[in-house]
C-alpha cells in the first residue's frame, strides 16, 4: 500500500498561563491512498488537535509541537516554512468541518467560493476556475448544480451545504482529505448519504481520508482502519473489523459498551 500520510510519535502541547496541557502524546498513525482511517475519541481525547497538526492549524501560541513528525509524501509538515505550508494547504491536504455554515462565507455565492479555491491555490484563470465549479458540485451529488452555484449558503439545507464543503475540499484534487466530525450536525438520513459520498470519492480519487469522529457507528460504516484515542494517547489501532468486534483495550471496550445501538448484539 502506498502510504501518503504518516504521523510518528506526535506530541502536541498547549502552554497556557495556568500550566501545560499535553493534548497529544506520542501518537502514531498512517493512511494510504484510497484508504479511510477513523480517529475516534471523546471530548478532550486529542483527536481534533491531531487532525489540525496535519496542516499545522492548531493556534500557536499556545500550541507547541513538542515531538514527532507529520510526514506528507515523506516531507515533515512540522518543519515547513509558512510559504511551503500554504502550498500544502488546499492543494495536497483539504479539510471539512462539522458546521458548514461557519466555514462558508455567507455573503459570497457558492460558485464563487469554489472558484476562489482554484484561483488562490492553483493560480487558475477566472475562466478555468469558473468552468470547474459546476462539475465539482455535480460530483458532490448536488442536484441542479448550475442553479445552486448562483445561490448563497443560507439558501441551502444543511446537507447541501456539507456537499458544497466537500465539493470545495475536492476541487483542488487533494491527496489527503481530513473530515472532522463531518456529519455530526446533520440529520441521520442525510448523514448516511454524506458518509457514503466521502467514502466513494475517496476511493475513486485514491485519496487518503482521515475521518475524525466520536461515533463508533460512523466508524463501522465507512472506515477501513481505526485509531482509538483516550486522553491524548492512542490506546488501540487496527482494522475496523478487529477493533470493533474484538477490542483489545479496556477503554475501547467501555466505549463500545456505552454506545447505544438499535439491535442488541
Amino acid at each position: 500500500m502506498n502510504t501518503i500520510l504518516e504521523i510518528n510519535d506526535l506530541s502536541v502541547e498547549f502552554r497556557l498561563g495556568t500550566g501545560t496541557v499535553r493534548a497529544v502524546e506520542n501518537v502514531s498513525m498512517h493512511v494510504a491512498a484510497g484508504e479511510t482511517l477513523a480517529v475516534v475519541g471523546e471530548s478532550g481525547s486529542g483527536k481534533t488537535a491531531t487532525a489540525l497538526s496535519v496542516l499545522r492549524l492548531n493556534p500557536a501560541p499556545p500550541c507547541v509541537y513538542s515531538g514527532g513528525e507529520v510526514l506528507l509524501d515523506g516531507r515533515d509538515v512540522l518543519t515547513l516554512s509558512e510559504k511551503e505550508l500554504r502550498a500544502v494547504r488546499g492543494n495536497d491536504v483539504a479539510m471539512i468541518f462539522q458546521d458548514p455554515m461557519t466555514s462558508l462565507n455567507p455573503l459570497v455565492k457558492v460558485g464563487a467560493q469554489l472558484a476562489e479555491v482554484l484561483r488562490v491555490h492553483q493560480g487558475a484563470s477566472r475562466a478555468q476556475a469558473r468552468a470547474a465549479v459546476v462539475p465539482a458540485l455535480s460530483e458532490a451529488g448536488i442536484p441542479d448544480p448550475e442553479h445552486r452555484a448562483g445561490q448563497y449558503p443560507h439558501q441551502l439545507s444543511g446537507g447541501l451545504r456539507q456537499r458544497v464543503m466537500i465539493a470545495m475540499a475536492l476541487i483542488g484534487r487533494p491527496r489527503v482529505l481530513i473530515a472532522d466530525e463531518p456529519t455530526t450536525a446533520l440529520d441521520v438520513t442525510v448523514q448516511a448519504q454524506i458518509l457514503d459520498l466521502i467514502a466513494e470519492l475517496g476511493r475513486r480519487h485514491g485519496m487518503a481520508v482521515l475521518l475524525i469522529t466520536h461515533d463508533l457507528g460512523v466508524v463501522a460504516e465507512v472506515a477501513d482502519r481505526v485509531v482509538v484515542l483516550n486522553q491524548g494517547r492512542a490506546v488501540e489501532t487496527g482494522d475496523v473489523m478487529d477493533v470493533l468486534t474484538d477490542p483489545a483495550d479496556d477503554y475501547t471496550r467501555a466505549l463500545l459498551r456505552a454506545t447505544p445501538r438499535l439491535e442488541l448484539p
Partner: protein
Amino acid sequence: MTLLELRGLRKEYGGRIGQAATVAVDGVSLAVAEGETLALVGESGSGKTTLVRLLLRLTEPTAGQVLFDGGDLAGLTPARLRAVRREMQVVLQDPYSSMNPRMRVTDIVAEPLVTHDPAVRGRARRPGLRERVGGLLEAVGLPAAVQDRYPHEFSGGQRQRISIARALALEPRLLVLDEPTSALDVSVQAQVLDLLAELQRRRGLTYVFVSHNLAVVRAVADRVAVMRHGRIVEIGPAAQVFDAPGHAYTRALLDAVPDPDPRRARRRKAG
C-alpha cells in the same frame, strides 16, 4: 391512567395576505400514560420542538387541545396555569446555555422552589432550602457540597445532572426531556440515561423524551411516536416500531442509523 393528552393539535406560523402559513404541527393527537416514557422522534423540521412548546404551553396552538391530568391547559387562568406548570418540567439539550453562569448551583436548583413554592417564595435564604437543594443534588448523583460552586466548574454531564435536579425540585409528574444527552460524550450519555431510568423507577415519573437518536430511544422508550412534516406517521410500542416498522419513513430512518458492529454495517451495505 392518561396524564397528558393532545387532541388535534395544530400550529401555524406566519401566513400574511397572499402568503401561505408554515404548518409546524399538523393535527397531532396522542396520549401519554402516567409512569411511561413516550419518545418523540424526528429529523430537523419535523415539528418535534414546536410540539414540545405546545404541550408545555409555551406556545399557543392554532387549533386543538392539550389536556394535563384531564384539564385543558387553554382555558386556565394565569394562577391555575402556574399550578399546572409545577407538575410539568423540562430538561433541555444544552446544559451550558440553560443556566445563568453568574448564579451558584444552590440558587439555580432552588429557583423553581423560590418561584413556585408559597412556603419559600420571597425568602430565598429560608432555613431548610440548602438541605432541600442538597437532597436534590444527591438524588442526581452529585455531592450536596457542590451547591456553592458556579456552572463553569462542572463538566457537561455534571451540568446536565444539575439541570435534572432543578427540574425535579418541584416534584413534577411529567418531565419533558428535549435531546437531554445529545450534547454529551457517549460514556457520559450512558450514565445520564441510567440516572433518568432510576429516577423514573423511584419517583414514578412520566417522560416525554424528544430525540433524533434512534439508538438512544430504543434504550429508553416504552412507546415511540415518529414525526415528519408536522404529523405523526407512526406511533406504537417501542419493540413494534423498531422491529416491525409500519411506515416507509420509519424504515428509512432506522436503516440510516450507523451500527457500531462492522459486520452488520457491511451486511447491510451488501444487501
